[in-house]
C-alpha cells in the first residue's frame, strides 16, 4: 500500500488487499469451511426429523408482500453443507489468492442460512425484519468507525469516539427537545462531537500529548459530565430538556417496493441513509482526491509531506475535528435517531466496538462498513435466536459479537497495518 502507487477503491466489504493473503491462510479457510459443512450436515441435517419445516417471512404488510419461503430443514442443511464444502475444497485446491475472501464469505453465508433454517424449524422467522434490524444496529458503528478512519488516516489515534458519541447523544437530545427541531439536534450533536474532536487535536497536536491517554481522558470526562448533567439538569426538567421527537423511517419511493431489498434498505431513517452516503464520500475523498492523498501522506510519512509543502498540523487538525463531527452525528443517532431520550452511559461501549470495526476493516470505509454489518448482524441474530428459543443461553448469545471479533481478527484478517505515523506526535525538524 505504498503512497505512490495508485490505489483502487476497496472492493467488497472487508475484502483486503489480495497480496497479504498467504497460501497457508487460504488453505486454513478452506479447511474451516469443510469443517463447518460437516457440522451443518450432522447437526442441522441428520439430527433433524425429516418432516421439519421452517418458514422465512420475506415481507408482510405494510411492506411489500412476498410469499413466505417454506423450506425443509434437512434438505436445506444438505444443500448448504454441499455448497459450503465445495467452496472449501475450491479454496484448498486452487492457485492464487485473489477472491479468497469472497469465496470464504459465500461459504459462511451458506452455513448461516442452514443454521437459521434449523433455528426456525417448526415456526416462522421474519427474515426481512432481521436484516432491517441489522442495519439499525450497524448505523452508529459506521459513524464511529468513519470518525476513527478520518483521524487515524491523518495520523491521530481517536480512542475518544465513545466520549464523542455521548456528547453528541446528549446535546442532540437536549437541543432537539428544546427547539423541537430534529435537524438542529443533528447539528448540535455534530458540534458537540467536533468540540471534543478539537480538544483531542488541541492537546495532542499543540502539546504533543500521548493521544491514547488524551482519548481515554476525554471519554472519562464526557462520561462524568453527561452523567452529572443528566442527574442535575435533564432529570428535573425531563419534559422540556429530554423528550425529543425521533426521526421516522422514510420510504424512498419506487425502490422501497423492491421485494426483500426495499423494506430492508429503503425504509430507514435519515441516520441510516446519511451513514451510507458518508461511507461513499469518505472513501472517494480519501482514495480519489487530492485532499485524500494529502491526508494519507500526512498519516504515513509526515516529514515527507512537509517537504513537499503540505502543512501537516493543519491537515491533522481539520481531520480530527471532522472525525469528531462524524462521531457526534453518530452519537445523536442514539437519541433522536432511536429511543428519543438521553440516559446515562447509553452508548454502552459501542464507541470501542466501532474502533474494532475500523481496525477489522483495515482503515478503509467499505471495510469498516463490512465489519460494522457483521457486528450489527450478530446483535440482530442474537435477538432473533433468543425469541426463537434455540436453547442457547442468553449470556452466551450476548457474547457472540465479541467471539466473532476475536475469531475474525485473529484468524481471518491476519496482520493489519495501521497508517505508519498513526499515533506519533509530529515535530518539525
Amino acid at each position, binding site marked *: 500500500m505504498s503512497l505512490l502507487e495508485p490505489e483502487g477503491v476497496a472492493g467488497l466489504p472487508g475484502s483486503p488487499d489480495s497480496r497479504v493473503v498467504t497460501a497457508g491462510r487460504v488453505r486454513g479457510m478452506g479447511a474451516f469451511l469443510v469443517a463447518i459443512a460437516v457440522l451443518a450436515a450432522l447437526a442441522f441435517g441428520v439430527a433433524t426429523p425429516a418432516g421439519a419445516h421452517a418458514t422465512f417471512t420475506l415481507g408482510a404488510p405494510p411492506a411489500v408482500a412476498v410469499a413466505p419461503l417454506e423450506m425443509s430443514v434437512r434438505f436445506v442443511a444438505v444443500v448448504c453443507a454441499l455448497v459450503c464444502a465445495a467452496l472449501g475444497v475450491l479454496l484448498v485446491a486452487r492457485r492464487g489468492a485473489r477472491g479468497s475472501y469472497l469465496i470464504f464469505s459465500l461459504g459462511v453465508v451458506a452455513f448461516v442460512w442452514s443454521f437459521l433454517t434449523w433455528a426456525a424449524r417448526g415456526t416462522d422467522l421474519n427474515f426481512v425484519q432481521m436484516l432491517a434490524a441489522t442495519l439499525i444496529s450497524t448505523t452508529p458503528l459506521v459513524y464511529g468507525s468513519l470518525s476513527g478512519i478520518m483521524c487515524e488516516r491523518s495520523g491521530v489515534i481517536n480512542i475518544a469516539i465513545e466520549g464523542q458519541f455521548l456528547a453528541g447523544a446528549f446535546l442532540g437530545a437536549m437541543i432537539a427537545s428544546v427547539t423541537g427541531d430534529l435537524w438542529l439536534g443533528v447539528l448540535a450533536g455534530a458540534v458537540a462531537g467536533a468540540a471534543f474532536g478539537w480538544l483531542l487535536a488541541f492537546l495532542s497536536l499543540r502539546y504533543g500529548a500521548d493521544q491514547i*491517554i488524551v482519548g481515554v*481522558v476525554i471519554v472519562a470526562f464526557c462520561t*462524568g459530565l453527561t452523567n452529572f448533567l443528566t442527574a442535575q439538569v435533564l432529570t428535573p426538567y425531563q419534559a422540556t430538556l429530554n423528550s425529543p421527537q425521533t426521526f421516522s423511517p422514510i420510504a424512498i419511493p419506487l425502490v422501497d417496493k423492491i421485494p426483500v431489498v426495499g423494506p430492508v434498505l429503503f425504509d430507514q431513517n435519515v441516520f441510516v441513509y446519511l451513514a451510507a452516503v458518508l461511507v461513499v464520500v469518505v472513501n472517494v475523498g480519501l482514495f480519489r482526491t487530492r485532499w485524500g492523498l494529502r491526508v494519507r501522506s500526512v498519516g504515513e510519512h509526515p516529514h515527507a509531506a512537509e517537504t513537499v509543502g503540505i502543512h501537516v498540523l493543519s491537515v491533522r487538525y481539520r481531520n480530527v475535528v471532522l472525525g469528531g463531527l462524524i462521531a457526534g452525528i453518530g452519537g445523536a443517532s442514539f437519541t433522536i435517531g432511536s429511543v*428519543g431520550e438521553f440516559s446515562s452511559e447509553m*452508548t454502552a461501549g459501542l464507541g470501542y466496538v466501532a474502533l474494532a470495526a475500523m481496525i477489522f476493516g483495515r482503515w478503509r470505509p467499505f471495510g469498516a462498513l463490512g465489519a460494522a454489518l457483521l457486528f450489527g448482524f450478530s446483535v440482530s441474530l442474537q*435477538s432473533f435466536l433468543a*425469541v426463537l428459543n434455540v436453547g442457547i443461553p442468553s449470556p452466551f448469545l450476548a457474547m457472540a459479537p465479541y467471539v466473532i471479533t476475536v475469531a475474525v481478527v485473529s484468524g481471518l484478517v491476519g496482520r493489519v497495518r495501521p497508517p505508519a505515523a498513526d499515533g506519533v506526535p509530529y515535530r518539525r525538524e
Partner: protein
Amino acid sequence: MNDQHRNDAGARHRRLPARATVVLATAALAATGLTAGVASASATRATRAVAHASHFLACEVTDTGGINDRSFNASAYLGLQLAAKKIPGLKYTYLSSTSTSDYTPNINALIAKKCGIIITVGFDMASATQTEAKAHPGQKFSIVDFTYAPALKNVLALHYETDQDGFLGGYLAAAMSKTGKVGTFGGQDIPTVTIYMDGFVAGVRYYDMLNHAHVVALGWNPAKKRAKGSFAGTGVFTNDFTNQGLGKTDATTLMAQGADVIFPVAGSVGLGAAAAVKQAGPGHYMEWVDTDGCVSAPQYCSLFLTSVTKGIAPSVEAAVVSAAAGKFKGGNYNGTLANNGVSLSPFHTFANKVPAKVKTELVKLKADIIAGKVSTDPNSYPAS
C-alpha cells in the same frame, strides 16, 4: 449527591501521574476538574447536613441502572423522598453504582457518612450487602429485591412476589392481543426478573386454558422441571440495564415475530422498547414494569395497557420511617397481592378499551390468587 463523580475522578487521578507528562497532567486536571470540583462541593454540603441534622440520614446505593431508571432505583429513591415528607428534618442522599465493582466502596462510603439506614437496590447487591452488614452489625440496612435465609438481624430484606401481578398482566395481555402472540424480555437472567416473566407466561397460558384460546407468549420459556421457588428457563435478555438500544432491538424482534403486546422487564432499557412500540404504530401495546408507567414515563402512557408494579417506594419508606423512629427490625418482608406489596396499576388510557368482562375476570383472578386457588406456576398449565 454526586460523590460517585469524585470517586471516579479520584481513581483516574491516582492512575495517571505515573505515566503522564506535565502537560497531560494539566489536561487531565482540566478535564476532570469540573466534575471533581462540583462533587467536592456537594460532599461538603452533605457533611454539613450530617453535622446539623439532629435527626437522621437515609442513604441509597443504586444499581447500575442509575437513579433515573423510572424503575426500581427510582422507586427506592421515591421511598426516601416520601419518608422525608413524613419526618421533618430527615435528610437523604444516594450514591450511583456505574459497575458492580462500585457496590462495596459505595456502601462503605455511606457507612463512613454515618447513614441511619442504607438502602441497597437490587438482587445483584445481595452479597455485598450481606458482607458489609456482618462487618458492621450496628449499621441498619435494607435491601430491595432479596430474601436472606437465614434472615439477618440488621438487614430488612424486601422481596416481592411479582409472579402474582405478572400473572394478571399476562392474562390481560393475552385478552388484548389481536395477533395471538405476546412477548416479554428481561434485562438479565436473574430471579427478580424472571419471576415477572414467569408469572406473565403463566397468565397467558391460564387465559388460553380458560378461554380455549391459543395465544403464545414469546421471549420466556420456563424450564419444565425445576426446584420449587426457582424461576429457571430460557428467554430473551438484553444482559444490560443501560443500553436502551438493545431494548428497542428486542422489542422490534418480538413484534417482527408477531407479538403485539410487549412486556419489558428491564428497568430503563424498557424505554427503548417503548420507542419501538410507538414506532410500530397503532395496534401495538405494552405493559410497564416495577412502577406505574403513566407516572414514571408519561410520554408513553398511551401505549401502556397497565403496569405490573411492586411497592418498592412504600416498603422502602416504611423501612426508613421505622429506622428513624428507632423501631427498625431486620428480617424478610414479602410483598404480595394480599398486602398490596405487588399490584396491577390502573388502566389509565385503556380504561374504556379493556372489556368489562376482562376487568371482572381480573378482579376474580386476584382474589383467587390471594386465596391460593389459582397457581402462578406456568408449568401448572399446558403450553399452547
